[in-house]
C-alpha cells in the first residue's frame, strides 16, 4: 500500500461531490471505493479524513445523509448531493480546472 498516494488535501471534498453527482446516493464505503477505483487504485482513501470531510460537507449543506439499506441488504448511511452541493461542485470544478491549467502551464514552460 505504500506506493499508493493519500488523497491530496482539499481535493477530497471535490472528489466526494463528483462521485455523488455521478452515482447518486451512496454510503461512505462506496464513496471511498469509488474514488479509489476512479483513480485506478493509485489513491488510498483514509477513513480518518473521509468521515470528517463528509461531516464538513453536511454541515455546509452540500450533502445530506439518510439511513438506508444497501444492495446486499446491509444497513448503511447514504449521502446525497443537494442543490447547494451541485453549485458547490460546479464552482470547485471550475476553480480546480483553473488551478490545474495554471500549474500545467508552469510545468511545461
Amino acid at each position: 500500500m505504500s506506493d499508493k498516494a493519500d488523497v491530496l488535501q482539499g481535493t477530497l471534498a471535490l472528489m466526494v461531490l463528483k462521485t455523488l453527482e455521478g452515482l447518486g446516493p451512496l454510503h461512505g464505503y462506496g464513496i471511498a471505493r469509488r474514488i479509489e477505483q476512479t483513480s485506478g487504485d493509485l489513491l488510498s482513501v483514509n477513513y480518518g479524513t473521509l468521515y470528517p470531510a463528509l461531516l464538513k460537507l453536511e454541515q455546509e449543506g452540500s450533502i445530506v445523509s439518510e439511513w438506508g439499506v444497501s444492495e446486499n441488504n446491509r444497513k448503511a448511511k447514504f449521502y446525497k448531493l443537494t442543490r447547494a452541493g451541485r453549485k458547490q461542485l460546479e464552482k470547485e470544478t471550475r476553480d480546480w480546472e483553473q488551478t490545474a491549467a495554471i500549474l500545467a502551464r508552469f510545468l511545461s514552460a
Partner: protein
Amino acid sequence: MRALRTWISKLAGLWTSAWRERELAEEIEANLQLHVDDNVRRGMSAEEARRNAVMRLGGVEPTKQIYRETRTLPFVENTIQDFRFAVRQLRKNPGFTATATFILGLGICASVAIFGFVDAALIKPLPYSNPDRLVGVFERIEWCHLCNISYPDYVDWKKLNKSFGSFDVYQHTGMMLTTASGAEAAKGTRVTDGFFRTLGVTPVLGRDFFPGEDQPAAPRAVLLSYSGWQKRYGGERGVLGQTVTLNGEANVIIGVLPREFHFAPAEPTDFWTAFHASGECDERRSCHDLYGVARLKDGVSIETALADVKLIAQQLEAQYPQTNRGQGASLEPLKHGIAGNIRPILMLLMAGAGLLLLIATVNVASLLLVRSENRRKEISVRSALGASSGRLASQFVTEGLVLVAAGSAAGLTAASWAMKLLLALIPADMLEGMPYLRDLGFNPRILVFSFVLAALAAVLFSVTPALHFALSKTGEGIAEGSRGSSGKGWSRVGSKLVVVELAMAMVLLVGAGLLGKSLYRLLRVDIGILTDHLVTMELGAPRAYEKPEKAIALERLVLNQIESLPGVRSVGIATDIPVSHWGNTTWIRVLGRPWNGEHLEMPERDVSAGYFRTLGAKLARGRFFEESEDASKPHVAIVNQAFAKQYFPGEDPIGKQLSYISTPPVPIDIIGILEDIKEGPLDTDNRSTLYVPFNQSPGNYFNIVVRISQAEQPLIPALAATIRQIDFGIVTSPGETMTGRMNDSYSAYLHRSAAWLVGGFAVLALLLGVVGLYGVVAYSVSQRTREIGIRMALGAQPGSVYGLILKEAGWLTAAGVGIGLVCSIGAATLMKALLFGVRSWDVETLLCVGAMLGVCALLGSYIPARRAASVNPVEALHTE
C-alpha cells in the same frame, strides 16, 4: 453564509454529542460490514475478510476524535467538560469546597460592603449638574481655614469676583415652626435665591426662587425638601401656595425639591427658605454665619478663582480694617465638603477589608495548593496518557473559576445584607447628616468592583496550582508515588503564604488595637467637668424673648422651675455646652496694651451664675459670676487656663481688663480663671475661651444643664414638660445626658465604628491566619509521618517530636510577626490622623498583639504537633 451555517451546526452539535457519537460508531460499523461483504465476494475467507477490512479502516479512535472536533466547537466543548469535571471534583470534596467558598465569600463580602459605602460617599457623582465645577467658598482666619463668611462680605465678593458663574450662600439653622399644637423645632436652611440654580437642581413640583426673591422687600417663600414634603404634608400636591409659619413669619410654599437631591452640609433640612437679609447679624460685616457655594466659570481653574477671591478679601481688609482684619479666603471642591469628613475612616476601612480579602484569598490559594498536591498522582497519570499541559492547565483554571463564582455569589449575597446591617447601626441623627448614604445598595460600579475582585482571585487561584505543576516535572509524580520531594515543594510555597497571612493579620490586629486604645482614651479624656448625673436640653424661645429683660426673666423662671423638680441638685444655662464646637466666637482686645485695630478671636460662652458649679468645673483662681451681675453692674468675664497661658504668659490675668472691638471700648474685668473645659469635640485641643454672665449678654436661645442626684433618663421628659408649661411657643431639643452626649458625639462615633469594624476584620484575620498555619503544620506532619516514625523507632522522645514540629511553626510565626511588626508600624503611621492619644508605634499594643498572635499560632500548631508525637512508630513504618 456557508461559514455561518457551519458554525450554527457546530453549535447545535454541543447538545447532540451522545447521539452523534453513537451514530458515527454505527456508520463506521456499517461501512466495515460492507467492506467485509465485499472482501468475501472477492473470495476471501470470512476471517481474512474482516481482518483486511479492519486493517484498511485504520485506528478508529483518532478518526472519532477528528470527527468530534469537526462536529462541534472543541474549545466550548472542552470548557463545558472541564466545568462539569470541576463541579464534580468540588462536590466530591464538600469540606474543601464549603471552606474555600466560605472564606472567599467572607473576604468578598467585607470588601464589597465597605466599597458600597466608599462608592456612596466618595465615588457616586453628586446629584447636581456638573458637580466638578462647584466649589465651597469660605473666609479664612489663622486657626480656621474653612470658616463662615458674613453677609456683607458675601455681597461684595459676589459683586467683585470674576471667576464665579454664580455664587450663593446658605445657613443651616434651627427654625421654629408654628403648628396647631404650639411651637415645634424644625430643621431649615436659609439660601440666597440662586442657590439651586448654582447647583443645577430644579424642583420636581412648583418652581425655584425668582431672582430677587431673597431680598427683604419680597414676600417670603419656601421650598420643601422631598422628605419634608412626605413627612409633614404626606406628599400632597396641594401644598403649593399654602403658608407655613417659620420663626414667626409666614412663608408661601412655592415648590418641592427632587427626591434624589441632597446637600450634606445642610442636612437634615425640611424647609429651604429664601434668605431675606434682616437682623443685626446679617447687617454686621464681622458676623460670620454663612457658607458659600459657587460654580466656576468655564475655563477658570480653582487656583485662578482662589487668587481672585483672595485679592477681594485683601481689598475688603484695606477698606474695612475694623471688621475685616485677618479675614482671608479659601476654596475647596464642593465634594470635599459633602463627605470629606468620613473619607479617612472609609479609606481605613477599605484598607482593612482589602487586607482581610487578601488573607482570605491567600488562605484559599494555599488550600488549593494542598489539594493539587494530593492530586499530583492523578495529574501525572493524565499527563502520561497524553493530556497536553495546556489541557491540564485549563482544568485548573476552570476549577478556580467555579470556586470564585461560588465564593463571589456567597460574598455578594452576604454583602447586600452587611450593607443594610452597617447602615442600620449608624444612629438615625448621624445618618441624617450623611444623606448620600440614603440609596446605598448595589449599582453597576459595585458590580464592576466585585467583578474585578473576582477576576483577580480567579487568576490567583488558577495560576497557583498550574504554576506549581509547571515548575515541577509531572513525571516525578508517578515515580515517587506522591511522596517525598513533592511534599517539601508544597511546604515551601505554603509556608511563604502562611507568613503573609500572619503578617497581614498582625497589621489588622495592631490597627484594631490602636483604634480601640484611641477610643478608650477619647472617652476618658479630661473635659474639665463631672460628666455623670448631668442632663442637658436646648431651648429656643420666640422672637419676643429677644429683648434683654424678657430673656433674663425667662432664664430666671426656667432656673427656678427646674430647680424645684424632684432630684435636681443644681441647674445652669449657657449659650453652648461642652463637647459641641469651638465656634460662636467673639473678637476682643486687652485694654492697657498698645492697640492698632487687631483683635483676638475666641469662642465666647454666655453662662448663668450657677453654670460652672452645676457642671462641676473647677476654678483655678478668682471667683464665679453672681446672679446679680447684669447690665447695671460692671462687665465681668472668666477666662480659661489656655487663655491665661496664651495671652497673659507670666502675668496674672485677674484684675486685667478686656474689651470687645468697639469705640469707645467698654472695659470687662477678668474675675476668675477656670480650668479648661472641652467646649469643642473630644479629639480637639483646648482653646482659649471667654465666659461672660448671661445676664450681661442675654438671648432667647440657650442650653440648660441639670445636675441630679438620681437616675438621669426620667428627668428628660419632665424638663421638656416644665419648659413647655412656661410658654407653648418655646421649642426644646430632645435632651440627653452628658455621658450620652460624649458617647454619641461625632468623634466618639467615628472612633468607635472604626475600632469595631477593624477589630472585627482583625479577629477574622487572626482566625484565618491561625487556621492557615494549622494547615501548613498539619500537612507537614502528615508528610513526615514516616520520618517521625523512624525517629521514634530510633528512640526519639515525644518531647523532641513536639520540639521538631513546634520549631517549624515557631519559625513561621516569628517570621509572620516580624514582618507584620514592620508593616504595622507603617500602616499605623498612615492612619495617624485617626488615632487619639496613642502613638503609631505604641509599644504596649505592639507587644500585646505580637504575644497574642504568637500564643494563638502556637495553639494552632499544638494540635498537629500532638498528633505527630502520638505517632506509633510501627504503624507509621508499615503504612508507608
